């Protein structure tokens, strides 16, 4: 990918700032999401909560289903490829969707290598738990980052941990004398040039969204107040009692994240949120955030 193409891909993510990207599994849900004010949809066969429940190997979704969703909406369409599965990514690029999520929600295809995203024209978003992971993905060509909160749990605690970790590391770096950056980069696994860039910018060099476990308008506003540029909602909408209403409420709360009165209004009368999962109750081998490095 040439630099100009990468620039356009980073800039598309900039246009999504302040917005909500919603997981959808069919045309009907995609239309509900678009109508509610989603800035993009993530087309996938099963939301993370069902992937978690069903077990087995989770792969890229049926391309015919993704194509149908692409036809049904005018907002950007994203879809997931397995970590390291560059052929799934090639297929998604051939489908001409707008963004690929190289995602830990699917079963990894490669335990050593993530996709070399610089070989593609299509943009990628990748998950990260800390600054090192975020910068390694950017070094591989990711044009957008998201937290790697524990998907399908309706529990925001891991997304909060990732965002706080990244913010802490960014603050440390920003205040560090330049001669200390090499050691910090070595210890934390940061590509050095990108570490210098973060130190200069005081933030990640690309747009950073919250993802994983966001289930309520308050969760979305929390992540925004912690400094995220926008929000992904996976199972949180279509596993709740009234998806259309909750989708609209999360859009409102994300736009007005600093206005408690408006977030309160958005939170009234939404019905049941998705059922939640305590992270400690999940068997360690089923923790999705540990996939990828």
């Amino acid at each position, binding site marked *: 990918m040439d630099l*100009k193409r990468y*620039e*356009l*891909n*980073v*800039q*598309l993510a*900039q*246009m*999504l*700032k*302040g*917005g*909500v990207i919603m997981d959808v599994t069919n045309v009907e849900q995609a239309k509900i999401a*678009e*109508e*509610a*004010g*989603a*800035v*993009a949809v993530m087309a996938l066969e099963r939301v993370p909560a069902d992937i978690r429940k069903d077990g087995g190997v989770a792969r890229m979704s049926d391309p015919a289903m993704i194509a149908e969703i*692409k036809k049904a909406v*005018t*907002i*950007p*369409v994203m879809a997931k490829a397995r970590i390291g599965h560059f052929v799934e990514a090639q297929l998604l*690029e051939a489908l*001409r*969707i*707008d*963004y690929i999520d190289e995602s830990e929600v699917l079963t990894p295809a490669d335990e050593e290598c993530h996709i070399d995203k610089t070989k593609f*024209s*299509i*943009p990628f978003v990748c998950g990260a738990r800390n600054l090192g992971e975020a910068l390694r993905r950017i070094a591989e060509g990711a044009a957008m980052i998201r937290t790697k909160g524990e998907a399908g749990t309706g529990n925001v605690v891991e997304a909060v941990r990732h965002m706080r970790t*990244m*913010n802490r590391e*960014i*603050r440390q*770096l*920003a*205040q560090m004398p330049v001669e200390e950056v090499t050691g910090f980069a070595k210890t934390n696994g940061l590509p050095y040039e990108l570490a210098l*860039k973060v130190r200069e*910018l*005081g*933030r990640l*060099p690309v747009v950073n969204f919250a993802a994983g476990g966001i289930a309520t308008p308050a969760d979305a506003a929390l992540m925004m107040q912690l*400094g995220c*540029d926008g929000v992904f909602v996976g199972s949180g909408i279509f596993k709740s009692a009234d998806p259309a209403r909750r989708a*609209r409420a999360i*859009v*409102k709360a*994300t*736009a*007005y994240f600093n*206005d408690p009165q408006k977030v309160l209004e958005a939170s009234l009368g939404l019905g049941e949120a998705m059922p939640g999962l305590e992270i400690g109750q999940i068997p360690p081998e089923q923790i999705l955030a540990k996939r990828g490095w």
Partner: protein
Amino acid sequence: MSVHFIGPQPEIVGVLDLQGGVHEHLEHLERLELPYRRVKEAKDFENLAGLILPGGESTCLARLLHIFGLVEAIGRHAGRGMKLWGTCAGAILLATQVAGEKNCLGLIDMQIERNGFGSQLDSFHSEALIEAVSPAPIPLTFIRAPKIRSVGKDVKVLLRIDDYIAAAENDRVVVTVFHPELTGCLALHRYFALKCGLHPRSEDVSEDWDTASWMKLARIAS
């Protein structure tokens, strides 16, 4: 005897801050040394000389404008002379006709088609001369851009490319389907400020601009 209170001349440029490329516009206004304000609710429109509707997703922006009563507020302030400029999604919001769907603000007589080029793989950079705006060619960034198909009699075409119109204006509204806020060129922001009756700095190009320049308005660490 009647007393007319003459208020201060509006001198602030607002940027609609609901979703999308807000920081990028604010950063350009800062470079032109223009006073600016983020606009999120009806009271924020007071004293605005102009309002920029940024790029983002037009369905999301339209929905938020409607539920928070801002469509009415924008109409009212446009009526008292506030100028408007829509980039990309913002242009869709301002159009009287949007292909296949309902319009939002309807403040410039034109027909626009959402996502006129295709997917993100069809986004591109180019360059063009817009005589009314600047004597030098302007860099253009198209990101999943709409296409203006036709304009009404009172609308002036500023830039036509192939089979579509990329920039147009009437006496109160400017629209561009591309994103000047994603380039180092200030010419269109300057042009809009002049239309608002303001006095921006005279430079058209920021040599020290780069694609991360907006980030100083969205920092985690200072």
